[in-house]
């Protein structure tokens, strides 16, 4: 289980995140949502051990996360410049050299499912193709936690659909947990179990989608807008 306890992150004098506490239940797909600048990317970096919180701690299965101990986490960063000089295959070999849990065979299988060639250099590919390679590389790892920063952003609806189906198909274990940030909430909602909503650097709410629809009689987008309006 990933467990954040009272974490805060300050950048100079600016407080990006403040007093964040939550636990991610295993085996679920959780959407990390909130307006631009609400701290989603920073939170994912802290959970992935890429950055260290100013206050508080992040624990994974009981141990504090550091850059070294984050080996059971696959992190997909929100950068389009993802190894521009490498081909898909080369990225897969690089991942294989870095992560013991990486399966090149699985990554190739995912790339085939997503219908993307792996012998072209990333910089020569379209944004949609790069997004597919990033997803194949990330899901090629066999870990308990996947943290994905905007995996669908800037991609057309067909690419989004194929990535969403890839996620459903290739996340196997009952214990694998995904936390992904997204603004494409309408498209992504059907694959989510719950929503973690950030507002002004704090956790505003953490709700299951079933609850949002059953209790609030709303879909995720309406619910989120309402949470923002009511302050």
């Amino acid at each position, binding site marked *: 289980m990933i467990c954040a306890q009272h974490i805060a992150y300050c950048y100079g004098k600016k407080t990006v995140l403040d007093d964040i506490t939550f636990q991610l239940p295993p085996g679920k797909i959780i959407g990390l949502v909130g307006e631009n600048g609400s701290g989603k990317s920073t939170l994912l970096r802290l959970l992935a051990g890429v950055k260290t919180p100013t206050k508080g701690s992040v624990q994974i299965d009981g141990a504090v996360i550091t850059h070294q101990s984050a080996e059971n986490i696959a992190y997909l960063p929100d950068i389009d410049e993802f190894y521009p000089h490498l081909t898909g295959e080369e990225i897969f070999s690089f991942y294989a050299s870095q992560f013991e849990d990486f399966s090149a065979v699985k990554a190739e299988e995912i790339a085939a499912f997503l219908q993307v060639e792996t012998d072209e250099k990333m910089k020569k590919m379209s944004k949609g193709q790069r997004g597919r390679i990033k997803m194949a590389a990330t899901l090629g790892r066999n870990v308990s936690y996947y943290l994905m920063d905007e995996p669908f952003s800037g991609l057309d609806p067909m690419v989004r659909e194929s990535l969403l189906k890839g996620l459903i198909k290739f996340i196997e274990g009952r214990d694998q947990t995904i936390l992904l940030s997204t603004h494409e909430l309408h498209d992504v909602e*059907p694959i989510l*179990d719950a929503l973690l909503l950030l507002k002004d650097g704090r956790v505003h709410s953490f709700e299951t*989608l079933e609850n949002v629809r059953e209790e609030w009689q*709303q*879909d995720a987008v309406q619910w989120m807008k309402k949470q923002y309006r009511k302050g």
Partner: protein
Amino acid sequence: MTVDFSRDKPIYTQLVEKICGDIIRGNRQLGEKMPSVREYAVEVGVNVNTVQRVYKELEQMRLTETKRGQGTYITSDDSEISALREDMKEKIVEQFFHNVTEFGFTKQEIIEQLQKHQGGD
């Protein structure tokens, strides 16, 4: 194909209704094998946990049976399907008359309209 879901109902409820519709229309036959949970999740584009809940509901409604190690099958008992048809008919009529009253029509007016409509077919 990915399904487009309406806003106000949980996704699992909408999928249960969709499969019931498939059964009533005969798109899914008595005794037919259902796709595995993951196959169906990929097909309609939803979370595996949601489909698990859908399959559980269908089984509780006795519309499907799980055979150990073989997967999930549509029931081969056609009395269950007839009951489902009757239920669905009742629901549609209930919903229909609910709308009728909402708009302030009388039942008599509507029945006359229905007869006229049928005559024009």
